[in-house]
């Protein structure tokens, strides 16, 4: 019997419920690190936009079979829009004024400018790229695979983190179970206070679940000594290509930083097009390869 072969098989329906092991978690960690470096290491919207596209493409094209992304994309989109909106409303800097809000309005009173919106857009690009790169870790490989991929001295922390990650979907599951059970019992949403009947049991159930989980981990000898790494992630040719290009992206971008080829971009006081240098551009384009290779 070959329980340990990692190739999903059977019908498409069955494959949906099996885990995919297409991506080596270490290759993915390296790629995600490269996306974070490029998103945070520059304010140039061109490189950030490419990093965002790369992260989005990997989430959409390399996610596990059955992994749902629509809600994640909605939240990321909302966070990015929030970033744009906040900077647009709060910055009050720049020459090209779109609208002037009365000064008596706290915080948002004053001029709202094109430059502030553009800078907010730039921040949103970086934020979106970071969020999607982080999400890719959860959507492309299992949390346990990531934990196993960490160096041994980080294993205990990683295992706790991996378990914590599973609690987030548990809370969501609990919330929807409680809501339907209470609705069948006559509960109807009538204002914010009425949600207490759903929120309290959902949170209590999740907390009880966490405590029980911790108890079960204790009972099963977690952190009692050296834990065996059961799975040594295999490196496929594609993983090697992904990791190589991610490493190259990091090296090239750091070289570009050291050579002063990554120019900062500031839309203030008046909007200017961002400058593009071929060296950081190359680094950011290398990030796209895991999605298109």
């Amino acid at each position, binding site marked *: 019997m070959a329980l340990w072969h990692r190739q999903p098989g059977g019908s498409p329906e069955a494959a949906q419920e099996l885990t995919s092991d297409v991506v080596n978690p270490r290759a993915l960690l390296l790629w995600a690190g490269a996306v974070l470096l490029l998103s945070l290491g520059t304010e140039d919207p061109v490189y950030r936009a490419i990093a965002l596209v790369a992260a989005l493409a990997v989430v959409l094209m390399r996610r596990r079979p059955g992994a749902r992304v629509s809600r994640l994309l909605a939240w990321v989109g909302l966070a990015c829009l929030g970033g744009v909106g906040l900077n647009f409303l709060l910055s009050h800097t720049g020459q090209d004024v779109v609208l002037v809000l009365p000064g008596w309005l706290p915080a948002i009173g004053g001029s709202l400018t094109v430059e502030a919106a553009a800078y907010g857009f730039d921040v949103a690009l970086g934020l979106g790229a970071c969020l999607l790169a982080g999400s890719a870790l959860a959507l492309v490989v*299992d949390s346990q695979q990531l934990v196993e991929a960490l160096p041994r001295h980080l294993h205990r922390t990683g295992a706790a983190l991996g378990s914590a990650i599973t609690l987030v979907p548990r809370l969501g599951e609990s919330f929807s179970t*409680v809501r339907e059970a209470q609705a069948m019992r006559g509960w109807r949403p009538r204002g914010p206070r009425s949600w207490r009947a759903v929120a309290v049991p959902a949170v*209590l159930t999740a907390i009880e679940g966490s405590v029980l989980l911790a108890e079960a981990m204790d009972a099963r000898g977690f952190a009692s000594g050296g834990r065996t790494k059961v799975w040594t992630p295999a490196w496929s040719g594609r993983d090697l290509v992904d990791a190589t290009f991610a490493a190259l992206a990091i090296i090239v971008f750091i070289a570009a930083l050291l050579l002063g080829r990554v120019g900062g971009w500031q839309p203030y006081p008046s909007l200017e097009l961002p400058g593009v240098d071929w060296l950081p551009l190359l680094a950011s384009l290398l990030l796209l390869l895991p999605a298109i290779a």
Partner: protein
Amino acid sequence: MAATARFTDFTYRYPEAPAAALAALSLALEDGMTLVAGPSGSGKTTLLRCLDGLVPHFHGGLASGRVEVLGQDLRGVTPRLLAQRVALVFQEPEAQMVLPVVDQEVAFGPANLGLSAKVVRERVERSLVAMGIAHLARRRVATLSGGERQRVALAGALAMEPRLLVLDEPTSQLDEEGARALRQQLDRLVARGVAVVVADHRPQRLPDRGVRHVFLRAGRLSAPEPAPVWPLRQRGSRASGELAWEATSLGVGHERAVLEGVNLRCHRGEVVAVTGANGAGKTTLLRTLAGLLKPIEGGLHREPGRRAYLPQDPGALLHQATVQAEIQQTIRWMGLEGSGSDVTAEFGLQELTGQDPRDLSTGQRQRVALAAILVGGPEMVFLDEPTRAADQASRQALFLAVDRLAGQGAAVLVATSDREFAEQVGDLVVVAEGGRLRNRAPVPA
């Protein structure tokens, strides 16, 4: 025989609990198999947690007296260290899953023991085969049914190859095949010298040869309670002929159909019981018929009327500070009249009305949840695994409550892996099997 565990004048009280969960308990658990029985809230789970050191090391609280497990004084040994020789399966298997995929989950315990990867894999493979779930090895835990998760939890404990195996309600959600696999494994383990301590309300599903019995009541050793006498009732005489709901060529599932071509109807005054193997789609069918899931295909007609729904996890309903408030909450939401004292008495909750439902045992919580949804007499009732963790008295109370509701004209649907209960309570018993629903022979009058 050597004592696997010895309790000497042991008293234990959970933090902030009004009374001791175990009181002056003196008891020797020998090698072989021991069945711990007793009503809900009698201290069975606490006793089992002592055997793993979780009580008192994990929970805190006040303890006096002495407990020795496998020759070690509990005061000097932690659960983590005991895990080298003791494995415990909790009452709620779904809450104890640490890792997202079945084979990883089963490997979690043995991997913590520092065994070689090869040995861990061999153990996992053996345990999955032993519990009849090798085909689930690569499945995500989140996609499994309650019974399948219970089997995964049992496989995880078997993979630790313990000297002492402790099981809390291990058959509560198992189908017949799962219970048979467990029974065989327990026989083998006992023959190999493994001590097994089990708390289960349905001991007939466990090995019966050479089993010692311990009966608890209110945290103390007690004489066994007599087996309940199931009351007789006239079957088939209550159905009014008035349709409550009807499914026609129904397909149910989440993204794909787990059951197809379902033709099923329920009249007022009728009890339909759906049983079948773990993962066969019983819960999905019940949730669809209750209106909580959209059918994938086919027709579903439901007459108007108040519906009551018991989810598999009764905790989903409980949020009030007391049992009494929990029942009154439904009365308020539904605009009913009365105090709910009838259901309080029906489910034997009179002495628990002032307690926080979440401080109660799993079986007691289930009774509170049942009382909370059934107060006031709903017209359509949908119960998902209602006998889970239910002791004999609770099962009987539930049987009588269902009988009363049907007698009052309610249409009742029960989804259960408890075949015995299904046969007892159902006017019609249908079996979910191989993606289809088939009728069992009509229940004799």
